[in-house]
């Protein structure tokens, strides 16, 4: 018969003996048992934390790679056949819901790279994002490459892959440069989230928030700017405030590049804060007018002043928007 003291010592040194009777079954004193339980619990806890960390790490890794992929710009992501097959759906939406009207599309140069500069309307359900690509694709054919610069969050959303096939890509100077150098038409909304969420009573105001990157881009690539003016989008909901203060308060401006967290009255949410899930837009009549192309160097000389060009573009668009606003008799009905 072995000496119990020796066996107890042996059990201690083996480490995993018999608390649950599986490993050896030596009786332990209560303090030893408690210590062993604590030890095991600690180990299990650290293993659980490790597993959770590893899962979280892999999820974050996947998310990071998906977001990275969403925000990269591969010109090949645009799929002309896919666009063509989806034109009827876009046509139904634009025709029946928005009764959209696009004027003077023939002013866009027939060939070569061009930068279309538009005012942005209608919150995260911006109607011109559907209407303008539809009009461009039917007018010039899906064979003519056409890209739209979009906010990072839009492309990182579940709709992102779908939009990329339509030609949407993350808004950046590099991406636009690449598309223009490939001879494509590029649509940019310089006002971005700042302009798209402006209050409804500022519907007839062009507000690019002083963002002049599009002028520098057009100058660097020596491509004409074609202003495109939209009205009606701000009537698809009652936009109350951009909520810039809310974006600062929640640090979304720093972390997510969101300068605004808009507050609106919109279906189906009634009070819609953030508009992250979008909303059901009211069927407001959308009118889009394409203006004459602006050849910057021809119009402003070989070394143009960026501020002067910016002011000219905004003023030209504002004049047109004033005319379009004067045409409208009733909200929503147009």
């Amino acid at each position, binding site marked *: 018969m072995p000496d119990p003291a020796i066996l107890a010592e042996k059990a201690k040194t083996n480490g995993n003996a018999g608390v649950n009777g599986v490993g050896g079954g030596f009786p332990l004193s209560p303090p030893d048992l408690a210590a062993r339980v604590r030890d095991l619990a600690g180990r299990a806890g650290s293993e659980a934390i490790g597993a959770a960390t590893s899962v979280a790490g892999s999820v974050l890794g996947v998310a990071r790679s998906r977001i990275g992929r969403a925000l990269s710009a591969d010109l090949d992501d645009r799929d002309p056949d896919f666009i063509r*097959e989806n034109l*009827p759906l876009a*046509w139904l939406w634009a025709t*029946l819901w928005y009764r959209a009207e696009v004027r003077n599309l023939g002013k866009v140069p027939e060939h070569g790279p061009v930068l279309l500069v538009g005012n942005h309307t209608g919150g995260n359900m911006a109607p011109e994002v559907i209407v303008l690509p539809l009009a461009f694709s*039917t007018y010039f054919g899906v064979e003519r490459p056409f890209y739209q610069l979009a906010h990072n969050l839009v492309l990182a959303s579940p709709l992102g892959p779908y939009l990329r096939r339509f030609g949407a890509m993350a808004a950046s100077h590099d991406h636009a440069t690449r598309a223009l150098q490939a001879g494509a038409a590029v649509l940019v909304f310089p006002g971005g989230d700042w302009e798209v969420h402006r209050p409804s009573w500022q519907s007839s105001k062009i507000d690019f928030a002083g963002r002049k990157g599009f002028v520098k881009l057009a100058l660097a690539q020596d491509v004409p700017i074609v202003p495109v003016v939209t009205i009606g989008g701000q009537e698809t909901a009652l936009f109350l405030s951009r909520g810039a203060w809310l974006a600062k308060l929640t640090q979304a401006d720093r972390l997510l590049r969101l300068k605004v967290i808009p507050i609106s009255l919109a279906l189906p949410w009634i009070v819609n804060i953030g508009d992250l899930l979008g909303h059901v837009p009211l069927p407001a009549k959308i009118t889009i007018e394409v203006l004459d192309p602006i050849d910057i160097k021809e119009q402003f000389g070989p070394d143009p002043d960026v501020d002067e060009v910016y002011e000219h573009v905004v003023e030209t668009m504002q004049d047109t928007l004033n005319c379009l606003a004067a045409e409208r008799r009733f909200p929503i009905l147009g």
Partner: protein
Amino acid sequence: MRINESVAISAPRQMIWDYLAEPGNYLHFMSGVTRWEVASEQRSGLGARYRMLMRVGSAEVGGLIEMVEWVPERDIAWSSVTGIDQRGRWRLREEGDGRTRVEFRFAYGVAGAGIPGYVAEVIASRTIRGHVRRSLHQLKRQVEHERLRAEAARRRRPETATP
């Protein structure tokens, strides 16, 4: 979706054919058509290509088309090369009494567009049928007017020829 409309025109087949064979006339009588441009070296005839657009709802739809049948004084048919799928045909047939029946057939769609494609075709058909009817009536008016002018000119000719 296929649309088929016809009209009887009081004019000889030759006169209607001459009018339809000239691409420059299309913007004058084709309702809803915003563009009809020659897109090939050949101005008309078999193999000639045109870029055409028609306003339907919120978009100007159409594309590049090519003449695939050209039987003088009888048939002109085209098919799409790019843009929406479309086939069009003018059929001219004599009816007697100096009248000609002009039939316009137009088939269109987007292959692979599924249910939304079918719904869009049905909804667009109302507008397109209206365009086709107006086009035929405008063709009739233009050609009959031409005929009257030609007949008046012919009647005046002997008078002016006699000193």
